[in-house]
């Protein structure tokens, strides 16, 4: 198969970027999208042109490293997929494909298609954990957790932290990402002691890092490769409201 590519090239955070045209020639239909880019890059290297920089590692949809906007969609067309799980058989021969980095104010571009998503790490550092000193845990079966609750927590925990949600949101909101972690930990009995402080600290950090607010567009849910449900956002809102009320009450003494 052959494709015309329009690829975002940008030397670094401080320079302006632009779309550049490339040809992808003789691409097997069974190749993945990133393998298609590998082939293009090998061609560029042979012509002494700098290859296109893009992030990837596991190439099987779990590490959350790949992060391309393909034809205007974070992770490209198709449901519940990362860019690395996108295959060329999905495209038409001869098609023009637009390739851009994930864009959000809190994700500055590092180079070409690579962005800096350390803001997500900072949100987790603000409280996305259960404090459990190594060695102090009770027997694992001493806290029974119903299968339904455990399964729901697992659904939220499946988030791969790729940032597609924020890239797809018109407001660049990180609410789905935060909601997933709040729900994963907040659903479990182990997560209760820190539930209030967790939501407060994570939401405030998210706001401070320049992510926008959620105005219910649901673009996040549509692109999420881990199929995190937007209903978790309601859960987050409830938890945050409770945390704020508690804080207000505490302030009034």
């Amino acid at each position, binding site marked *: 198969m052959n494709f015309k590519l329009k690829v975002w090239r940008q030397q*670094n955070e401080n320079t302006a970027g632009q779309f550049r045209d490339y040809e992808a020639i003789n691409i*097997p239909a*069974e*190749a993945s999208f*990133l*393998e298609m880019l*590998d*082939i293009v890059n*090998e061609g560029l*290297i*042979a012509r002494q*042109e*700098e290859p296109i*920089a893009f992030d990837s*590692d*596991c*190439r*099987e*949809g*779990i*590490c*959350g*490293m790949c992060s391309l906007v393909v034809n205007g969609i974070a992770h490209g067309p198709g449901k*519940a997929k990362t860019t690395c*799980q996108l*295959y060329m058989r999905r495209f038409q021969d001869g098609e023009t494909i637009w390739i851009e980095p994930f864009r959000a104010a809190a994700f500055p571009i*590092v180079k070409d298609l690579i962005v*800096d*998503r*350390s803001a*997500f*790490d900072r949100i*987790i*550092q*603000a*409280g*996305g*954990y*259960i*404090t*459990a*000193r*190594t*060695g102090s845990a*009770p027997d*694992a079966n001493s*806290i*029974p*957790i*119903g*299968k339904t609750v*455990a399964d729901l*927590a*697992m659904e939220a*925990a*499946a988030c791969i*932290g790729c940032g597609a949600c924020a890239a797809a949101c018109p407001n660049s909101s990180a609410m789905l990402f935060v909601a997933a972690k709040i729900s*994963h930990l907040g659903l479990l009995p*182990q*997560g209760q002691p820190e539930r209030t402080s967790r939501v407060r600290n994570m939401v405030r950090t998210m706001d401070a890092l320049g992510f926008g607010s959620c105005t219910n567009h649901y673009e996040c849910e549509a692109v999420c490769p881990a199929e995190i449900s937007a209903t978790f956002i309601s859960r987050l809102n409830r938890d945050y409201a409770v945390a704020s009320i508690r804080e207000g009450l505490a302030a009034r003494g």
Partner: protein
Amino acid sequence: MTTQLDARIPSGPLADKWTKHRAESKLVNPNNKRKFDILVVGSGLAGASAAASLAELGYHVKCFCFQDSARRAHSIAAQGGINAAKNYQNDGDSVFRLFYDTIKGGDFRSREANVYRLAEVSANIIDQCVAQGVPFAREYGGLLANRSFGGAQVSRTFYARGQTGQQLLLGAYQALSDQINMGGVKMFPRSELLDLVIVDGHAKGIVVRDLKTGEISSFPGDAVVLATGGYGNVFYLSTNARGCNVSATYRAYKRGAFFANPCYTQIHPTCIPVGGPYQSKLTLMSESLRNDGRVWVPKNKGESRRPDQIPEAERDYYLERKYPSFGNLAPRDIASRSAKEVCDEGRGVGPGGLGVYLDFAESIRRLGEQTIRERYGNLFDIYHNITGENAYQVPMRIYPAVHYTMGGLWVDYNLMSNVPGLHVLGEANFSDHGANRLGASALMQGLADGYFVIPCTIANYLATQLGKKVSPDRPEFRAVEEEVRGRVKKLLSIKGKRSATSFHQELGLLVWEQCGMARSRDGLKDALQKIGPLREEFWENLNVLGGQQELNQSLEQAGRVADFLEFAELMCLDALEREESCGGHFRVEYQTEEGEAVRNDKDFCHVTAWQYTGPDSKPVANIEPLVFENVKLAQRSYK
């Protein structure tokens, strides 16, 4: 000159060694812990759990990884599960049984004391992870669920859907994030270790390239912990993440650390077959699938019918036939080699005849599609996405692929290498899996090393280092930095014609052919003759564009390929000199008439720990004899 290796195994009965060792280990008091800086390289299960736990104890930790976030370490991709001797199923499991299975699974090529300790702390790992909120699968009553895995006859594997590695890593990453927040750990993502700094014979620092800016700098520390994963990508195609590399451990080797058993590599039996030369990596279908899938090929060569058209009588369920008691759950090396055999006989299926069927039809009839969907839904989705086939309707096609590396830097019972101060955890060390790792045991080992072993054992080294802080002004730091800069400059200045990838592919194919599932003296000699010239060409004809002071992925890759090109030689040499078949190391010269591996316990019941002696001289083979006091060496049998 060979060095006598002292594994520092505590004396006393096997079951008491670890307790005794903990009681006798040196302690560093809380005030002094604050004086120590520990450099942890790697943020996978081993690195993240170690960094978090060491910081909890009060040490100052710096943690490095090459991905953009600690959470993306390769451990994230582990699917199937983690073993622990909890005996929650009441099916007769025990610490001793897990120990025995691991020793036997490793074909009697691992150290008893380490493996016993691993089995012992396995239960604590599950407790720890549940306390962190890891959402393991549960029964309706709310208790933890288990499944069984290859090489075991009990159900001791804990899992979180098909994403166990992800959930365990997120648990460790969150603990790490907690410590970053508390100021105990400083995290350096997108940072690659390019060399180790040795001062007065001790590991006292590392040289790192900031992958975003290209800046090369050194970090001094009181101890170095490498948790940098395995070297499976020496084969180019493997189930490992693209970035996995040997550089950290190989650089340490060149600075004096011994590399043990590099020829022990594991080929996983259940991967999606190779599609073509464009392929950048291979995808594993978790071995847990073998619980409910039956492996078969047609009895006839060159069979052209669709699988559902082939009657039962014309199918060969070869694992069930050859290994009636373990059947489809035979250990990985055996399952992989059997697949190769039937394909070599011309009975393979799919493009190129390099595949076997993994068939769920019977399980679906017995349990219903819903149950299979619940157990393996995401794996079936992955398979569908890659191959375009629906495995609920047609059998999966699978083929073995490189998956894991048992070899690694030699460590003693304290997980310290022969270089004082240099500790090695997780897949990067050689320790617990012998010549073959059982499924669901790598996650266990990484977390055992990081959460429970190193926080205790590192004190034995640090207690000797009070008041011996090395000044960052020592010339050793500048010297290694300059060497690293010189190497990077050299890579950029060759300006030849071939990309690093093309060299990597060529090397990968060569070692896959000659040092893969089956190895022969001639093949290994052939590989050894070809690697040198390939490396020479690399240094004359490599083409890396872009500069040093910027994000430059070609440069990163070139550095890793350069190390693979040296390391491959060591791996083949080790394979050549180990004149026996054991576990994942199958030498065609040493097999029974039925094609089973034949160990040579008289001459090879030992660890070979290779010592670097310079670019043009043969490394020295140091030997650690393996002494078995608690198990009887037996011909491994899974019949």
